[in-house]
């Protein structure tokens, strides 16, 4: 049954951006990646920079981002997205270069590349999806898994004596003089999605200023590996996860 819309009576106020390719994603139902893909590509279209944007896909669930995002992209080795982005941006300083990385990629195996790209103040935008777990490999403990959180490698819950403490990347990179803009956002509610888009937009705009790295951490869900429904997972973000990862602007020297 197709709904008939009378164009004389109705105006379109929201539709899928052609910054996204017309393909179905492989993501689980309810996964936040789709939302962040959408807002990022809406920004690329709104800024009219598709022809000079290059994205870096990580290793992790979003490894196939280049099949979904309608921009030129490179797939980086696990953790190396910021180094790959650095290589591109140094050669093409007037292009827009962004990385799209998960918590394992950015905050475990790629911590050195992340910190040093931020430390050098590479004029790139780092989009960091923090869902506190390893999604693609099947729900193992991430560097951002919170204390007590169960995962397939912390089945009794993350224990600080055995597993160490969770890492708060936004707070860390905000300390580095090379970053110009650091904000943590979430995508579990409509209003938050709007804010997340504003943050990523500012991150992209910051690239043109050439004043340093913009870093946007997006707290997202992994309902499959959290073993929740999508709705429960998005509620758990509010009830639990954001206590470890408070939202807000950690640094803004963009003047925007």
């Amino acid at each position, binding site marked *: 049954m197709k709904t008939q819309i009378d164009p004389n009576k109705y105006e379109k*106020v929201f539709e899928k951006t052609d910054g996204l390719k017309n393909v179905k*994603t492989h993501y689980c139902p309810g996964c936040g990646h789709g939302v962040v893909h959408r807002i990022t590509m809406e920004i690329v279209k709104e800024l009219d920079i598709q022809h000079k944007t290059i994205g870096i896909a990580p290793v992790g669930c979003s490894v196939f981002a280049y099949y979904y995002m309608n921009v030129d992209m490179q797939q980086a080795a696990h953790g190396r997205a910021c180094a790959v982005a650095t290589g591109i941006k140094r050669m093409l300083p007037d292009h827009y270069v962004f990385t799209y990385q998960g918590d394992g990629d950015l905050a475990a195996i790629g911590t050195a590349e992340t910190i040093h790209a931020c430390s050098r103040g590479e004029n790139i935008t780092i989009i960091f999806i923090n869902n506190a777990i390893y999604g693609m490999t099947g729900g193992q403990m991430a560097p951002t898994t919170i204390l007590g959180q169960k995962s397939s490698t912390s089945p009794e819950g993350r224990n600080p004596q055995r597993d160490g403490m969770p890492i708060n990347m936004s707070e860390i990179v905000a300390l580095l003089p090379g970053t110009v803009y650091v904000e943590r956002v979430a995508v579990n509610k409509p209003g938050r999605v709007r804010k997340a888009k504003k943050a990523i937009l500012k991150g992209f705009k910051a690239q043109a200023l050439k004043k340093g790295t913009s870093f946007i951490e997006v707290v997202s869900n992994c309902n499959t590996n959290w073993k929740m429904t999508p709705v429960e997972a998005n509620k758990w973000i509010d009830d639990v996860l954001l206590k470890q990862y408070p939202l807000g602007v950690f640094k803004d020297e963009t003047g925007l």
Partner: protein
Amino acid sequence: MAKQKGMVVIDTENCKGCGLCIANCPTNTLGFSENFNANGYHYSEMKQDTCIACQSCALVCPDVVITVYRLKKEKTV
């Protein structure tokens, strides 16, 4: 502010039935269909004509399957 009137069109074949649009709809407009799509998901659909074109559903939809329409305002002279 008078509530505007709207309508959503859902690309039901690409809907994964996650239910986030339903949970985030402030007017209980949306619900799961009794039918499945080709992937076996109970897709989301309009259950009643209460849409206010707020776009909440579209904002949280990870699969970007929702198009939102708003009833044009009648021009008064």
